[in-house]
């Protein structure tokens, strides 16, 4: 196990190296930050001065070597827009995104566990059909559309929840719910099939035939085993929540990593894009390793060599 973790940690290095290279090149071939920084009336001379000051006149490989050298020391350069270290800006935003991701996960579990279990227990009944229908709709509904609809209903018409921004717990409800629904839909289906499989196992039948009550068997015997794959999926989904909340954060003006990234791309703030993608890559890689470890702890039959 220790060997596996060590090996995985070493594998992070080439992965991050490749990520940094791809982002570096993409960011540089897609536009000119100098043009966006200067006023419309700036002269060619002004542009040349700024280009030089930012080091953008040097060949690409020189820029990359320089970038890599400082990146290793945790310096991803200054944000053009904010004139502040990019990594600092990205790390400032992580708590907001993390908060939203955890809350979304919370909503997803809250919805998916009961729905999934009920749906499995009452399989092929009308209830099962309704739940499956809901989860298909939940999965298919675009985030931004649902966000806007929820704002209209709960904030504008009913006036019970704030529209946007980050503040109290009440600010968290709508964006977290919006993000959680898609996830819940996926988890409901996963829990359903996982429970179904277990409910057909011999030991469940044995437990039933011993005269144990239906609820006891479902809760004590089937449910705990049925949750194992769900836990795995949860951790994997969590990383995509951290990195992939762009649309939801924009709709709700949630000042997280996603919104920072959107603005950075629009204003061509290269340092932020690089730092943000890098941080997201680190989170994804590390979470994947942790998931593997957790999975192995949960099910010793799985081996990593």
């Amino acid at each position, binding site marked *: 196990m220790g060997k596996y973790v060590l090996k995985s940690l070493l594998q992070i290095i080439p992965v991050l190296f490749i990520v940094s290279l791809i982002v570096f090149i993409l960011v540089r071939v897609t536009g000119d930050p100098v043009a966006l920084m*200067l006023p419309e009336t700036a002269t060619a001379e002004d542009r040349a001065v700024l280009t030089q000051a930012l080091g953008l006149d040097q060949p690409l490989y020189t820029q990359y070597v320089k970038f890599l050298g400082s990146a290793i020391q945790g310096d991803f350069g200054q944000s053009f827009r904010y004139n502040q270290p990019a990594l600092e800006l990205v790390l400032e935003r992580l708590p907001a995104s993390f908060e939203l991701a*955890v809350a979304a996960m919370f909503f997803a579990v809250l919805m998916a566990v009961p729905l999934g279990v009920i749906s499995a227990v009452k399989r092929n009944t009308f209830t099962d059909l309704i739940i499956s229908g809901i989860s298909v709709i939940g999965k298919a509904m675009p985030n931004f559309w649902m966000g806007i609809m929820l704002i209209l209903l709960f904030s504008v018409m009913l006036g019970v929840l704030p529209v946007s921004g980050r503040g109290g717990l009440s600010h968290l409800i709508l964006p977290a719910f919006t993000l959680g629904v898609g996830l819940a839909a996926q988890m409901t289906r996963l829990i359903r099939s996982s429970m179904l499989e277990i409910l057909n196992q011999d030991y469940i039948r044995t437990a039933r035939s011993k005269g144990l009550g239906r609820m006891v068997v479902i809760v004590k015997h089937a449910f705990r085993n049925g949750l194992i794959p769900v836990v795995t999926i949860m951790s994997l989904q969590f990383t995509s929540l951290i990195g992939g909340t762009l649309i939801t954060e924009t709709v709700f*003006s949630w000042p997280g990593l996603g919104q920072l990234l959107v603005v950075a791309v629009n204003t061509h703030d290269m340092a932020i894009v690089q730092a943000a993608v890098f941080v997201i890559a680190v989170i994804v890689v590390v979470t994947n390793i942790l998931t593997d470890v957790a999975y192995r702890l949960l099910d010793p039959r799985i081996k990593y060599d």
Partner: protein
Amino acid sequence: MKKRQWTGLWITLLAIVMVLSACGGKTTSTNDNAVTEGTGSGSASTTLTIAAATDIESFDPHNNNNTSSEAVLVNVFDYLIKNDSEQKKVAGLATSWDQVDDTTWRFKLREGVTFHNGDPFTSADVKYTLERVAKDETLKQNSYFKNIVEVKAVDDYTVDIITDGPDPLLLNRLSKMGAGILPAKYIADKGFDAFLKQPVGTGPYKFSKWTKDDRVELVKNENYFDGEPKWNEVVFRVIPEASTRVSELLAGGVDVASSIPSTDIARIEGEADKKIVKAPIQRVLQLIFRQTEGSITADPKVREAIDLAIDKQGIVDSIAGGAGIVTRTSVTPGNFGADPSLYKTSLYDQAKAKQLLQEAGYAEGEAEMTISVSAQYKEQAEVVAAMLEQAGFKINLDVLEASAFSERYSSKSFKEIFMIGIGNSLFDASNNYNRYMLEEAKGESDYNNPEVEKLLQSALVNMDPAAREKEYQQVQQIFSEERPAVYLYQMEGVYGTNAKVNFAPRSDEMFYADEITPVAQ
């Protein structure tokens, strides 16, 4: 094995609960703030909340280049000279100013003004501020100020500003963002980074808190030299998504919301306690032509045909929701050098356009050209293209993402036509016309008219305002004939407001909090 599984589950659940309770703890404290400070409608007379689509870049007025930053910063930093709501120059931190000679202006400074940290405002601050922005080439406002050679502190309350040549625009420069006066001593003592975290100015509102991409919070400066400010607190919220901004206004979370999409105007007007207010802004949407030899748009007949083929009022009504004013000049009223005879008017004659195109020697569909446009004006460009095709042109529409457009713009690599909305932060015709001077026009429009060149060169250094104004008006008359560009319309800023506040939008798009007042109840 069972036991191990449960351990894993419990650890995961515990982690979730811990993180959630951590967020919970934090949110409770912010909730308390919200109650005491009152962001809701109950205490509208003490807190003003304004929503904009973009955040400020920083609290460094010298290293900022967007209007939405300045709109916030004018409440914290003062200029020597201010523009009133009609763009007339009025006293700010300077009480009077005189021209000593062609290159020197003398300013008398207001006495008894203090920065938010208590430091007195003196000529040393003016010297530090203006020399910083004039000399540091990496600052985004530098290009507006680099002609200032020196600022001499004559005494504590008198400064001489010396330029490298006659500069008829100096007063305009001193009343815009890059001239926001910074506290020299505070910055010398604490360093610039500390200043950015806890900025200090002389303005009516003091910095309180900035959560990036969420909100800027300002509080009243009790010691403001121009009387006590009207609001206890002013909050600028950042809400990039337009429909969310509208919802926030409808739900009462903000008092003023800017950049209302034309599709939402009716919805806001339909609410009893909400209003829509509009004002022309400093931005004229226009088509700029390449007149390089061999280019189809080098032919004046073709350019005239393009002008006549476009129904400008139609575009204003259909795409901009009525929020636009047609014009035949880009120097609109409120800017120095405007020619009112070309304003609020436009030409449109499809039949004549077709005829002109034939006279120029093009049969239907032969006059092929590319119009490049940034994605933000995509709809307007589509309508323009459709109108031109109706008149017999063949149009390739080249819609570019904003940063790609900027790059092509600065590298001057557009084809026959590019469509752009050009603003004017100096409120002076030179800002509109410098691009048509021989050197600047090279490679972009390749416009070349010796008469215009002479007028523009002279106006650039002419210190006699009346003669200078004539020069620019002459240029406009020539342009209305020659059409190096076709103007579509001057844009209007569309704002939604709570009926509880009086807000008259300014043409410079600034939000001077004290110009927004609560409606007497």
